[in-house]
């Protein structure tokens, strides 16, 4: 009887999901309610989790409940800590969910809501969740080894080297692009700049409290910190209203870029307990609260989605970034659908804390589904504002002709009616000087979130507070990614440099710390600066490179996963990882080719460089601007070279994997699996972790 009820229940969920998905895919004309998006996404996730992840767990990976996991084998209370599966789910989700699933879907909304939403749901179910789950499983079986170590052991030395390079590449581009998102969010906004600047002394205060007053009492310190941060969000309005203070905190893009670069250097070189860790605590609490509130807000307000399912920009002429749906929608939305960076988390902390192999399904597959849902919510928030407003906020001046009436006429001419006065009124309501040309995704997402939040609490009266709360939330955890990433990058630079000159590799040696911090900051700082001064808006060039590098890392992870499945004798099921890998390689190589060689200067780096060179040659560039233009030409060629190197790495990796697989299948090479030996678990079936010992 129970079985019949269960089958009927799942059939109802599947039918509801299919109906909702059909509605958002086939709907034309009147605006659609956001509830359909939530129902479609949640039902698809439930069905994918119930059926597909169960299939992967049982058939493909054959999870073993009796096998001791790394935390039982090593149990040192430091890295290897047996952790309750719900707590570890929270840990893992907090680690994987960064700004990507918020910013990517917001940018991809220029194609309309449909392509991005479908990719978020299907990409997560069949690619992203599978990658996270399988890599987590592989790492559990190898005492928590990283994806790079597994690539070296299971594929080849060269595969491991490519993984290491991919991590450094993604780190550099990621930090530059998230820095650019923050710059565009804070540019000419004294309120937002003040709020974010104040989070630094708050974090320092917390750091000192946690180090000297009450060591490790994270919860009480975080409660104090969050209260202070909420206070400075409100206090920002007083700063914005004061003519003298407002001037101090009104900064240009270039000034903000240098401030962020200096901050990254300080966070990397200072002791981790002083600035980096306390900011991370603040960010984690605010992130969890804001994402939960957004979900509640969407369900409460049930906003209308005003963006059409498909816009005219599917033809590749989009103002936010240039390029057609294929491949650019799939490059723009990486996190939320599939993100290679997750493989670093799935093969880092999480496998060392997991209690049972069976928990890998809930944590690996489940947490990624939740991240995908965050992406769908971001899409709803971005699409619930009038399309004209969305394009006004996200288009660079070169695309719309600056701001005001001329820009409004351009956007209206695209078929998305807009009055210049609408933008003036909106900027006034949210407490900003202007909302024109704020590319990067963060301001438009903040407007969308603020409208949803104010629809729940406070109405239009609190719109400006909610807007700046949303900006603070985005910028705070973007900077957390930036400072944590810079520090990890510093260690990677020290590791590489230490091979050449030993003292440089010592992580406690101050000159080494300062020099390596300066190197990694200079690497991403250069790309950030280049993005800030780019007349096409840096997002157009940097975000696709970031997407390509992220998907390159995902390809590395899926090659590792496929190789391990092959060695485990699961050849029959290898399509589970092989198909997403083939898809990723196809989109990444296509996007790389187009970004380098496309004849359209807005897409192809070389075409843009050549167009600028031709303008200099015919004397179209004034003498005073020639040096600047030449720098722009150099940057375009550099971007082309970086993209080329990433594409070459993917091709080398694929050739490497194919050769390796051929030698395994033809039995020319012994298929050796580098798993830790089997040890039976001694924990009772209901044991739920170290901190639950007194249950």
């Amino acid at each position: 009887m129970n079985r019949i009820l269960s089958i009927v229940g799942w059939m109802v969920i599947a039918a509801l999901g299919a109906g909702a998905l059909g509605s958002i895919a086939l709907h034309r004309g009147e605006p659609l309610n956001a509830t359909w998006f939530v129902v479609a996404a949640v039902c698809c996730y439930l069905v994918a989790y119930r059926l597909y992840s169960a299939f992967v767990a049982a058939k493909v990976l054959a999870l073993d409940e009796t096998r001791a996991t790394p935390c039982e084998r090593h149990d040192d209370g430091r890295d290897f800590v047996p952790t309750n599966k719900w707590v570890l789910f929270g840990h893992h989700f907090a680690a994987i969910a960064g700004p990507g699933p918020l910013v990517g879907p917001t940018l991809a909304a220029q194609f309309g809501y449909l392509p991005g939403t479908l990719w978020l749901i299907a990409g997560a179910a069949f690619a992203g969740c599978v990658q996270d789950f399988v890599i987590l499983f592989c790492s559990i079986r190898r005492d928590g080894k990283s994806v790079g170590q597994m690539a070296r052991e299971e594929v080849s030395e060269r595969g491991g080297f490519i993984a290491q390079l991919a991590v450094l590449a993604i780190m550099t581009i990621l930090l530059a692009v998230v820095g650019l998102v923050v710059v565009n969010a804070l540019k000419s906004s004294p309120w937002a700049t003040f709020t974010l600047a104040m989070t630094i002394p708050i974090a320092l205060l917390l750091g000192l409290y946690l180090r000297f007053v009450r060591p490790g009492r994270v919860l009480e310190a975080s409660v104090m910190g969050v209260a202070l941060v909420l206070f400075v969000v409100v206090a920002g309005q007083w700063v914005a209203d004061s003519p003298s203070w407002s001037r101090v905190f009104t900064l240009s893009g270039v000034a903000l870029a240098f401030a962020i670069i200096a901050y990254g250097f300080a966070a990397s070189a200072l002791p981790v307990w002083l600035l980096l860790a306390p900011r991370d605590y603040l960010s984690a609490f605010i992130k969890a609260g804001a994402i939960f509130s957004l979900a509640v807000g969407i369900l409460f307000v049930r906003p209308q989605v005003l963006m059409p399912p498909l816009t005219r920009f599917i033809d590749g002429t989009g103002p936010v970034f240039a390029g057609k749906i294929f491949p650019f929608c799939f490059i723009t939305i990486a996190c939320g659908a599939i993100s290679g960076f997750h493989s670093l988390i799935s093969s880092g902390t999480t496998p060392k804390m997991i209690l049972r192999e069976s928990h890998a399904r809930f944590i690996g597959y489940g947490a990624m589904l939740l991240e995908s849902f965050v992406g769908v919510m971001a899409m709803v928030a971005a699409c619930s504002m009038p399309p004209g407003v969305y394009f006004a906020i996200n288009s660079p001046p070169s695309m719309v002709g600056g701001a005001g009436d001329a820009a409004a006429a351009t956007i209206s001419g695209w078929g998305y009616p807009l009055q210049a006065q609408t933008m003036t009124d909106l900027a006034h309501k949210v407490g900003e000087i202007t909302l024109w040309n704020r590319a990067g995704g963060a301001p438009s997402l903040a407007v969308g979130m603020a409208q949803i939040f104010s629809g729940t609490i406070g109405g239009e009266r609190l719109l400006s507070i909610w807007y700046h709360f949303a900006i603070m939330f985005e910028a705070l955890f973007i900077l957390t990614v930036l400072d944590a990433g810079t520090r990890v990058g510093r260690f990677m630079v020290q590791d590489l440099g230490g091979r050449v000159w030993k003292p440089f590799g010592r992580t406690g040696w101050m000159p080494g710390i300062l020099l390596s911090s300066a190197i990694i900051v200079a690497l991403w700082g250069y790309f950030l600066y280049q993005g800030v001064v780019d007349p096409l808006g840096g997002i157009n060039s940097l975000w696709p490179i970031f997407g390509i590098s992220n998907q390159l890392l995902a390809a590395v992870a899926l090659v590792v996963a496929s190789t391990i499945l092959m060695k485990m004798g699961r050849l029959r099921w290898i399509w589970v990882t092989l198909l997403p890998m083939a898809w990723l390689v196809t989109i990444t190589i296509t996007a790389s080719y187009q970004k380098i060689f496309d004849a359209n200067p807005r897409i192809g780096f070389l075409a843009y460089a050549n167009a600028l060179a031709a303008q200099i040659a015919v004397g179209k560039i004034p003498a005073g601007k020639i040096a600047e233009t030449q720098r722009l030409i150099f940057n375009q060629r550099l971007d082309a070279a970086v993209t080329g190197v990433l594409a070459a790495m993917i091709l080398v990796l694929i050739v490497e994997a194919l050769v390796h697989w051929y030698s395994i299948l033809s039995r020319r090479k012994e298929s050796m699996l580098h798993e830790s030996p089997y040890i039976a678990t001694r924990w009772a079936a209901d044991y739920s972790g170290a901190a639950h010992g007194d249950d």
Partner: protein
Amino acid sequence: MRHAAKATSRLLRRLWRGLREWCGDAAYESYLRSKGGQSSSSRTLTPAEFYVEQLNRRYSRPNRCC
């Protein structure tokens, strides 16, 4: 009624414990319970030493994603 109150209090205690564990507030207690914390071969760290050591380790590898 008493049963419901008991169940609620148990649930709240679990939620509180889960929250402390999630944010790292209970990390030192977990360390003391672990084999590493109870090992006679090495000195047990003080809360301040453990806090700094744990942060240095955690922030030397990718722990925040894009």
